[in-house]
């Protein structure tokens, strides 16, 4: 990350934060809130919904996909804005010992 700018670091931070909020943070909240402990409604044998999740699956999947989208947009930005300098790279094979 030595040559990463503040834009790069911010994009990675926002992306990882969004994914972790959607998966872990809201998962903890939902677990502590009681049944159901997952973002799917609980039904009885008749198929009637007897308990709904505190946090909608749409909110949690939205956070995660937003994180993925930020990652994708950051990659596009890197392709468009950062000039490759690969001609200054030496690549040497490593023996498999």
């Amino acid at each position, binding site marked *: 990350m030595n040559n990463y700018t503040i834009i790069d670091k911010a994009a990675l931070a926002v992306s990882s934060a969004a994914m972790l909020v959607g998966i872990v943070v809201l998962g903890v909240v939902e677990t502590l809130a009681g049944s159901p402990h997952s973002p*799917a409604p609980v039904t009885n044998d008749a198929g009637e919904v007897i308990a709904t999740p505190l946090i909608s699956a749409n909110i949690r999947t939205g956070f995660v996909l937003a994180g993925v989208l930020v990652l994708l947009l950051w990659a596009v930005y*890197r392709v468009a804005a950062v*000039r*490759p*300098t*690969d001609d200054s790279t030496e690549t*040497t094979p490593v023996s498999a010992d």
Partner: protein
Amino acid sequence: MATNTTDRISNGLDVSSAFSYDVSGVLPAYWLAMLRVITGWWFFHAGVTKLLESGLSYSYGPMYLQGMDGTVLGPLPVWMGNNLAWLIEPGVPLGETLIGLGLMAGVLVRLASVFGVFFMALFWVGNAGFTNGVVNSDLMGLLLFITMAVLATGRYYGLDAVIEQLSVVERHPRLKYLLG
């Protein structure tokens, strides 16, 4: 086939090192290649069986998207199902097959992985199998494709390692964003 990259970054981005994991031993390289090939087979099998059974007319694809009403993706998948059936019916089996082939052979792995993320995002949201939480097999598949792209797994026992040495790639180093 594993590579150890010595960098002399002068100005800008060294594409080889930016996406690579410092794999100095044979075991990590072997395992990244294994993950890549198995992930590739997963998609190749899904795609080629659709091709064998439905050809280029995979009508379940648009139907699946039309059923994705009320998801976090809003009206987009339903609109795609209603208006892009001409693209989705051949696109799903062909896309899965090509993504799988790319990963198994290690060709254009990063490009294939981006499309894999797109497919898995739709599967994860559309299947909505959240009974045991949001971290399910669909999300793990999505994360696998991101891993394939970030770690440049095509360089380990994959043809991207050879392709990256071609003169056309040397002349157009931005191509390395799609390889590796």
